[in-house]
């Protein structure tokens, strides 16, 4: 048999074992290719222009390369290890290492570039779908066309050729280290050293749990006002990140074994078959797996967290736009307002108009400030605030010495929370008026232009308003003090009204706003981010699922002798499979549960609109992981069947 024949025979025989490797390759290539196609698609210009979209996509593609190459290197490492026996055999019959390397390289070359072609083809066909999804979520009205980009092709080929070279280097190093002895060593390599549970390890386990809990605790305190200076906040964030990651590692390293050990001690040697296959096998490998599990958990948590955040911000765009406009349209100039009114009337669009005079006054909020604003570069005793008269609002009535604040941003609330009541002072140029502060309302009555994006609005008695109006401090006033808000009577005409608004082509400055417009731009920005984060997150989750699956494949082969023993002793395949299912539930469940927990705390502490939206990413992740879990159970089934 010539060497060429050998290569083909090997390939044919190994393809069955390698189908997952091939899948991983095709998957990575097609993802990368479709993403790069996206990058070069002319239809993308529209989305890219909107924000620094091009930069975002480029960064994402670099990240994608990193994820994919780490994944492929891991997969290759896994698959070459399974062939160490074969390599030893080749050496035994007198082949030089260089020869073996060239055989493996040729084999790999065919496999690798074959799957790459398939991947490019698949990537090309799904790229249109991906562009369609992107357009849909960024609300871009463009038609997605199937567009083959030679630039994308070249870039993909270059990137994957480099990865191929890296893989070859790894294989070379692997073969170089391989000796004929490894032919026999394969068996003994499974006999890892198991050490006894020491007190030290128990301490590590408990420490791990404590560190994670402390991280969670601080994260829930992050925005409650306990950390006020920027440095403190920054340190707290670093601490949370560090403590959660280290805690996760220690948890895997110690806590899991620790908890299992307690269970095992209690059983006093009397283990059921389920426990033999799950508990003891997990404990046996936990120490060597701790790092991998930590990395996977942390990155899954990151992926879930980012996915949820972008998902939430995408879907809260409308709410933000509403707060920002205080109605459907906001105009701050009487002349333009009149023009807009006319135009609307001409189109038969019914609306309510609201005119409010807004003044900026300097307020002393020292007495009602709950948090210490030192270090935030704000002086609470001299804070410029928008002020309106009670006359402007129908259902609010305040006495001459009272005031109510309204329209307060949740985010700002976290940083400078106010007491329920107290004394404040409003300052004009010369006069200072002390007032009773009665509380805070949620409604936004004037547009974001006046509130600087989220400051509360002080509502005062008409007389107070007049007094301050005469005594106003010109240096803190805005260009205009008139707010004209339009709210449509019929919400379904919003699209039409927006068209009118755009046709009038008002001055491109921040003074006016249209709710639909803001919401759409917001969606465009967040949509692209959501798309990229989603793309990367999914890639990451799939690759980490694959890696977990590969690991299970390896474990199942290592444990094959155990299954042989157990089956000889009279345990049926069904008995063993039940134990394996428990084990898989743990192997995939633990990174999933801990990842979800981590991301829950990350999202919850950083986001206040945290709502039902977070379920979608979470359920998605759960489904993904269960698919890989089921796949690995099926693989175990095959191994167990073959064990006797």
């Amino acid at each position, binding site marked *: 048999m010539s060497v060429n024949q050998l290569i083909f025979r090997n390939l044919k025989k190994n393809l069955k074992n390698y189908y997952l490797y091939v899948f991983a390759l095709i998957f990575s290539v097609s993802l990368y290719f479709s993403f790069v196609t996206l990058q070069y698609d002319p239809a993308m210009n529209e989305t890219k222009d909107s924000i620094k979209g091009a930069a975002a996509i480029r960064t994402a593609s670099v990240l994608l390369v990193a994820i994919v190459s780490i994944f492929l290197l891991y997969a290759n490492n896994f698959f070459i290890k399974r062939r160490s026996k074969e390599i030893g055999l080749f050496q035994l019959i007198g082949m030089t290492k260089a020869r073996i390397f060239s055989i493996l390289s040729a084999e790999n070359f065919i496999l690798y570039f074959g799957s790459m072609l398939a991947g490019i083809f698949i990537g090309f066909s799904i790229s249109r779908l991906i562009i369609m999804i992107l357009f849909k979520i960024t609300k871009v009205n463009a038609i997605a066309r199937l567009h083959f980009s030679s630039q994308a092709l070249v870039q993909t080929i270059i990137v994957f050729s480099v990865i191929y070279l890296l893989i070859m280097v790894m294989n070379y190093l692997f073969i170089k280290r391989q000796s004929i002895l490894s032919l026999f060593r394969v068996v003994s390599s499974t006999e890892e050293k198991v050490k006894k549970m020491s007190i030290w390890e128990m301490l590590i386990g408990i420490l791990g749990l404590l560190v994670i809990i402390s991280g969670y605790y601080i994260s829930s305190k992050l925005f409650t006002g306990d950390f006020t200076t920027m440095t403190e906040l920054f340190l707290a964030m670093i601490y949370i990140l560090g403590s959660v990651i280290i805690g996760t590692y220690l948890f895997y390293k110690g806590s899991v074994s620790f908890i299992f050990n307690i269970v095992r001690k209690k059983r006093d*040697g*009397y*283990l059921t078959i389920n426990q033999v296959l799950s508990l*003891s096998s997990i404990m*046996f490998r936990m120490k060597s797996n701790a790092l991998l599990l930590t990395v996977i958990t942390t990155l899954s948590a990151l992926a879930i967290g980012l996915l949820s955040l972008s998902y939430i911000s995408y879907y809260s765009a409308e709410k933000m736009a509403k707060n920002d406009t205080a109605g459907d349209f906001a105009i701050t100039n009487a002349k333009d307002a009149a023009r807009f009114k006319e135009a609307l009337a001409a189109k038969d669009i019914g609306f309510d108009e609201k005119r409010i005079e807004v003044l900026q006054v300097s307020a002393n909020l020292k007495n009602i400030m709950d948090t210490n604003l030192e270090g935030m570069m704000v002086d609470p005793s001299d804070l410029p605030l928008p002020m309106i008269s009670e006359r402007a609002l129908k259902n609010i009535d305040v006495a001459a010495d009272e005031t109510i604040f309204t329209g307060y941003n949740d985010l700002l609330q976290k940083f400078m929370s106010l007491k329920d009541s107290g004394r404040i002072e409003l300052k004009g140029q010369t006069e200072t008026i002390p007032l009773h502060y009665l509380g805070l309302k949620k409604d936004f009555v004037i547009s974001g232009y006046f509130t600087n994006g989220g400051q509360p609005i002080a509502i005062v008695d008409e007389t107070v308003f007049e007094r301050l109006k005469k005594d106003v401090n010109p240096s803190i006033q805005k260009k205009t003090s008139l707010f004209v808000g339009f709210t449509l009577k019929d919400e379904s005409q919003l699209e039409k009204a927006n068209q009118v608004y755009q046709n009038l082509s008002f001055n491109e400055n921040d003074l006016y706003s249209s709710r639909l417009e803001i919401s759409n731009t917001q969606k465009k920005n967040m949509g692209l981010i959501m798309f990229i984060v989603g793309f990367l997150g999914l890639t990451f989750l799939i690759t980490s699922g694959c890696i977990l699956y590969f690991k299970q494949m390896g474990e199942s082969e290592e444990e094959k*002798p155990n299954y042989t023993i157990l089956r000889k*002793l*009279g*345990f049926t395949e069904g008995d063993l499979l039940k134990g394996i299912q428990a084990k898989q539930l743990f192997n995939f469940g633990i990174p999933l549960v801990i990842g979800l927990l981590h991301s829950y705390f990350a999202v919850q502490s950083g986001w206040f609109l945290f709502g039902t939206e977070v379920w979608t990413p979470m359920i998605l992740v759960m489904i993904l992981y269960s698919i890989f879990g089921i796949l690995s159970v099926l693989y175990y089934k095959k191994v167990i069947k073959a064990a*006797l």
Partner: protein
Amino acid sequence: MSILAANKIHKSYGNKLNKQEVLKGIDITVEKGEFVSIMGASGSGKTTLLNVLSSIDKVSGGTITIEGKEMTAMKEKQLAEFRKQHLGFIFQDYNLLDTLTVKENILLPLSITKISKREADERFHRVATELGISEIKDKYPNEISGGQKQRTSAARAFIHEPSIIFADEPTGALDSKSASDLLNKLSELNQKRTATIVMVTHDPAAASFSGKVIFIKDGQIYTQLNKGEQSRQDFFKDIMKTQGVLGGVPYER
């Protein structure tokens, strides 16, 4: 009453064109409480015979009855159940689970039976003291010596009080001291518990511990030796002599 009766068992591997007949009609009966050794050269089919007798492998022809139940007619699941209840195993390479401690390994066959934990503990103590491994019960297999591993394996075979115990070259990987140690324990247990043991070995010294030795050559029974009242030393000489004849080299004095 015979506990195991094998009737004209055949076993062949391969397909029709290239058939290799390993067992060519073997009849064996083992009585309760017997300690039987099966001897033969490499390739004589002794391990195949043991595998077939212990239901790990299927016969191509013939019947095997253990405790009146015909094993050859059973389905895979019934066989597994049967092995669990009625058979014990000791293997050359110990076949202990690395992931379990000595005690857990020994208690493994009890895990499906409905035996209370107290009862299981009692049994463990009895068998562990008999085999002298109680002080290593919390150690893992890779922390103990080969002899200890094999005794653990033996304890596992005895713990559920099976009808019959199959041992495949139990001393094959042991040094002579641990080997005779183990065999002494086995024959002790054989007498004390009237446990039935069928052992495959190629070591005449090991075989001399048993009460009966069956010689196999080329898939057929060659001869059978009974220890009877003679001493182990004499029995050993007998075995050596027979083995010499079996190997084609006459034993000379």
